[in-house]
C-alpha cells in the first residue's frame, strides 16, 4: 500500500470512529454469528491491551531493584503498547464490520506480526537483564 493510500485509510478510519453509526448505513446486515465472532475478536484484542497495561504496572511494582530509568522506560513502553492495542481493537472491529456488510474480504494487517516481534524483543531484553543480575 502506498503512503498516501495508507494515510487516506487512516483518515477514513478516524472518521468512522467518530461517526461509527455510518457503518450501519451501507451494505446488508451480516449473519449475527459473524458479528458476534467479530465482537469476540475485538474483546480478545482489548484483553491483550489490558494485559500489556497490567504488565506495565507489574514491572513498576515487582522489579523494584531494576535501575530507575530502565524501569520507567519498560513501564511506559508497556502502557503505550496497551493503549495502541486498544485503539487497534476498535479500528479492526469497525473495518471488519464494514467489510462484512459490503461483502468484501476481511482486512489484513501487519499489527499482529509487529506486536509479536515487539513482545519477543521485550522478553529477550528482560531475560538479558535478569542474567546480568540487573534486577537484584
Amino acid at each position, binding site marked *: 500500500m502506498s503512503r498516501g493510500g495508507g494515510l487516506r485509510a487512516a483518515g477514513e478510519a478516524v472518521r468512522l470512529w467518530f461517526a461509527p453509526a455510518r457503518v450501519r448505513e451501507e451494505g446488508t446486515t451480516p449473519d449475527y454469528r459473524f458479528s458476534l465472532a467479530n465482537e469476540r475478536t475485538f*474483546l480478545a484484542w482489548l484483553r491483550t491491551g489490558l494485559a500489556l497495561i497490567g504488565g506495565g504496572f507489574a514491572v513498576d511494582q515487582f522489579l523494584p531493584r531494576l535501575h530507575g530509568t530502565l524501569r520507567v522506560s519498560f513501564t511506559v513502553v508497556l502502557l503505550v503498547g*496497551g493503549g495502541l492495542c*486498544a485503539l487497534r481493537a476498535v479500528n479492526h472491529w469497525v473495518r471488519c464490520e464494514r467489510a462484512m456488510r459490503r461483502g468484501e474480504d476481511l482486512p489484513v494487517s501487519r499489527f499482529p506480526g509487529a506486536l509479536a516481534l515487539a513482545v519477543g524483543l521485550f522478553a529477550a531484553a528482560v531475560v538479558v537483564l535478569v542474567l546480568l543480575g540487573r534486577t537484584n
Partner: protein
Amino acid sequence: MAGGAGPGPRPASDRDPGLQPERTRLAWRRTTLSATVVALLAGRQLLRNAEGGAVVAAEAALTGLVWFGFVVLAHRRMRAMAGCRPPGLPPRTALLLIGCTLALALCGAVILLQG
C-alpha cells in the same frame, strides 16, 4: 436468515447450536476480569505511596470510577446476550470501552511519574 440454518432439520427450539451468545458473554466476562486485575494493580500501586493525601485519593477515585464504567458497560452488553438473536455491538459501547482502557493506561502513567 441467509445461509444460516445449514443442512438437516432445524432444532425445535430457537437455540443457537454453536452457543454464540454464550461464548460472547463469557468473552465479556473474561474482559471484565482483566480490567479488574489492572484496577487492582493500580490500587496496589496507590497504597504504596499512600502518604500522598488528596492527590492519591483523587487518583484512586478516578481509577475506581473508570473500572466501574467498564463493568457497567460490559454488564449491559452481557444482558443483551440473553436473547437468542442478540443485536450487534453498539459502536458507542466499543468506543467507551476503549476510552476506559486508555484512561486506565493514563492513570498508570500518572501514578508512575508521581511515585
